[in-house]
Every structure is written in C-alpha cells, then in structure tokens.
C-alpha cells in the first residue's frame, strides 16, 4: 500500500537517505531498522510529508503523494507518531484524543457551537483511551502522565486519525521493560486493523512483531526480507546486527 521509489534526501553534501526503494504491504508490520544516523527518522519525515522529497516518488494506495502536504496525507490514511513525544501537553488525555478525532470527522471551520456538546467526539476518544490502556487516566493533563503513558498517548493520537497505515517512530524510546511490554501488546492489538511501519531499536520487539524487516545503513537499504533471512544475512550482521545478535 505504501511504495517508495528511489527516494533520496540530501542536506547540502550530506546524504540522509539514498535511493530508498521500499514497499509496505497491506496488513503487515514492516520494521525499519539500522544504526543511529542511518536515516530512519528522515525517511519517516519524508513519508509523512514533514520533509520535502525532491528525488524519487512516494505512492500511497497507488496515488502519488510525493508533494502532498502533511495534513492531506493524514486525510488519505497515513498517520505518524514521533520519536520525541509530541502531544498537547496542557490538555487532558481525553481532550488530546478528541482533538485528533475532530481532525478527521467533518469540517472544523465551525465557529459557534461548543465542542463540549459534541458527545460523539468524546465517546470515540474514550474508546481510544481504553484501546491504549489510559481509560483510568482520561482526565489527567498530558504533561503530568508517566513517560510510558505519554508514549501510549503519542501512538493513540496517530491511531485516532483512523489511519490505514501508521508510521511509528521508536514507540519504545526511553521505556523500561514493563512499559515496553505494554507497548508491544498495544501494537499486537492494533495490527489486525492497521498496517504498521515500525522504526525501533529494541531488537527483541522488532523480531517479535515484524512480518518483514528492512535494514537501512548510511541512508541505503542493505537488506529487506523476512526476519529469519535478515537475522542470517551476512551483510546485515556485519553492518549492524553483529554485536547484538552475538551477545
């Protein structure tokens, strides 16, 4: 459903992503791994439309979205979460989610009727809060949530837009083992209804979740395939996985 065709990104002389060709199929969890600085977050930025793509093409459900603005990609069914938590910190969990629901349900060029009266928005937000395990925290102000809870809300905001494909940029960043398990379970729960492109450093989680894995090194795809094949790929072992798998 998502196709990258020879996508590159250069900042002056620095190559961030280099001739990346990649497919994410409907229904799969596709993991994108690679050492720090490999260009994973740059690629997520290009796919989500935050970073401009001058070289190569990006197709979503067959349509060329290379030059579509970010908000229009969300409307088309392509949402993202951030590696560095980006939520509406002064709003409650419920208000955060209701806002994201509002973004995709009808026009928001409405100036008179109080949002508070739109119970449909908040009903759906409550269901989402339960989905991400924050049903008991729904009236808590986001800034005061624990780190793991903020990360869950971060993913929840992306899910609230009802995407067909969600780009998760290191959802487990900075998490302890228990929080990581909860995030793993969350991704397992959502994978039946949404395709996932997952950037993650936690190899344990990656090999448990991924249907396919693409390895990025210095902005280039060095391998792509089933987890077992990636695990045994000599180039990958040498370039990246070596130490971690040997350990």
């Amino acid at each position, binding site marked *: 459903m998502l196709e990258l065709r020879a996508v590159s990104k250069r900042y002056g002389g620095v190559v961030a992503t280099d001739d990346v060709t990649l497919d994410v199929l409907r229904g799969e969890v596709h993991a994108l791994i690679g050492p720090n600085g490999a260009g994973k977050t740059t690629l997520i930025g290009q796919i*989500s439309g*935050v970073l401009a793509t001058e070289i190569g093409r990006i197709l979503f459900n067959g349509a060329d979205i290379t030059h579509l*603005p*970010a*908000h*229009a990609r*969300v*409307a088309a069914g392509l*949402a*993202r979460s*951030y590696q560095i938590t*980006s*939520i*509406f*910190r*002064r*709003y*409650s969990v419920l*208000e955060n989610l209701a*806002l*994201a629901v*509002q*973004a*995709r349900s009808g*026009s*928001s*060029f*409405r*100036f*008179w*009727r*109080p*949002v*508070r009266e*739109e119970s449909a928005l908040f009903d759906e937000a409550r269901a989402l809060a339960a989905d991400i395990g924050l049903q008991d925290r729904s009236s808590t*102000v986001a800034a005061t949530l624990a780190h793991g809870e903020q990360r869950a809300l971060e993913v929840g*905001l*992306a899910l*609230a*837009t009802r995407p067909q494909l969600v780009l998760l940029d290191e959802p487990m960043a900075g998490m302890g083992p228990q929080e990581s398990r909860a995030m793993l379970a969350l991704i397992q729960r959502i994978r039946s209804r949404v395709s996932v492109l997952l950037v993650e450093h936690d190899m344990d989680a990656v090999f448990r979740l991924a249907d396919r894995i693409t390895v990025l090194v210095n902005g280039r795809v060095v391998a792509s395939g089933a987890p077992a094949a990636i695990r045994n790929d000599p180039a990958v072992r040498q370039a990246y996985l070596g130490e971690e798998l040997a350990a």
Partner: protein
Amino acid sequence: MTRAIAVFVVLAIFPLAMQAMDGMFYVSLASRILIYAIAATSLNLVLGYGGMVSFGHAAFFGAGAFVVGIMAVEGVRSAWIAWPAAVAVAALAAFVIGALSLRTRGVYFIMITLAFAQMIYYIFVSLKTYGGDDGLSLPGRSTIGFGTLGNDLVWYYLVLAILAAVLYGLQRLVHSRFGRVIAAIRENEARAEAIGFPVYRYKLACFVIAGAVGGLAGALIANQSSYVSPSLLHWIQSGTLMIMVILGGVGTLWGGLIGAAVLLGLEHLIADYRIGWLAALAPNYQDHGALAVGIVLLAIVMLAPEGLAGLFTRRRHA
C-alpha cells in the same frame, strides 16, 4: 456568566451616573476606552488565542477608520454601508497580509507584519487628497437612518452593545471546533498538522477574523471624534494595542477591555490630575506622561505577569 452580567450592568449605569454628576466628558472617554477594548480584543484573538505575535494590527484598525472617513468625505455617511465596507476592507487587507506573513514564524512574522502595517501607514500619509499627514476631518458621525449617533449617550450605548457582541462572539469562538484547533496550533503546531489539520488555513482564518473586527473598531474610532489621523496606522498604535493585550491578559476574554481601560485611564489620570507630592518632587512630571505610564506598566507587568485578568480568574488548564 454572572461576572459578565455584573460588568455590563456597571458599564450600562456608568453614563447615567456621569450625566447626573455633569461629567459627560467621562462618557466620551469611556466610549473611547470601549472602542480600544474592541480593537485590543481582536488583537488578543490572534496574539493570545492563536499565538501569532502580529505587530501590525494597527493596519486593520486604521484601514477601517480611513474607509469610514473617506466614504464620509465622499458623501456616504450611512453606517449600514460604511461600516460593513470598513470591515470588508480590513478583512481583505488581513487576508493579503496574513497569506504572505503566515508563511514565516517567530521574529520574522513579527517583523513582516510590522513592515506591512508601516507600508499602509506611508500610503495614507502620502495620500494628500485625503488629508495626508494632517488627517481627515469628517462632516460628523455616521447616520443610521432613524436617529443620530451625534448624541454621546446614544453613541456610548451603541459602542457598549458592539463590545458585548464581540466578547460574546469571542467566547463562542474559543469553545467551538475552530477555537479548539486554534488553541491546539498554539500549543503544538507540528502535531496539529500531523493529526490532519491544515494549520495554515486555520491560522489565516483566525488572522482574517481578527483583522475584520479590528476594522470594525477602526470604523468606530473614526466616528468617536469625527477625525481620522494616519497615526491610527502607525506602528506605535500596533504597540499600544499590544501593550493593552499584555497588560490585560494574553489569551483571556477580558484582557482587551481591562488593558484598554487601564492604559487609557492611566494616560488620562497622569495628564489631567496634578498629584501634589509628586509635583513637589518633579515639577514637570506631567510633561513626561509616557515615562510615568511606562513606570506604572512596568510595575503591573512585574507584579501580575499573566496580566491583570489573571488576578481575577483562576487559571484553567486549556
């Protein structure tokens, strides 16, 4: 809500009391304050609620005033025609200036809005047909068909009614879908875009609404003294409106009204009342009114960093 009613009851009784005490001058001063309150409230929508630090709001205020002034000089004195025209011209100016300025952020946004407003200022200064530097005297206040707005009491109540409508509209807008989006953009613009809001369009709509209301305030100020000066368009005017908002309370419903009342009230107090002990210390302090106002403002801002409105309301989280 009860507070709002109380405020407007007091404001409605005020001119009657002044009339009884033979103080019609204060009714005129109060109308001026209420008009500035409308202008400052419109700026507060972009600056406070929208988080867009526009340093060119005088452009819309002054444009509205000049539309009414020029139309009056050309013989169109009906408020039903001139005022909507003032609002429309201000909204159009806000659309053009906003469409270009909102592509920038931060300091660049501040500077570009300032630059646009100054451009408009110089256009009107060089427009000799309509007064140039000297400004434009109107043949009188606008007409509304069935009565005259020349009566200061009628004028006061009309301005008060418009302010009430503007504040009620702002209150509705802030809690509407649109208002939530604007607040979300101020809070986290990148995320607002990432959950699917076309951020630029919402900011532009907010900017245009504020410009239109600023134009309405301009139409009123032209009528207030039947005189339109290009100084209404000057950057100092933008700064004055900004000071009112900051003083009263950024992003608060009453901030514009409180700021306008305190700033204009202070200026009046310092210029027109001689304080004995202060005069003994500094005999000509009244010649340096701006300095005195500045010192008082500094004190208020230091003691009430969230604006004076913050002293009355408990702070809500969103």
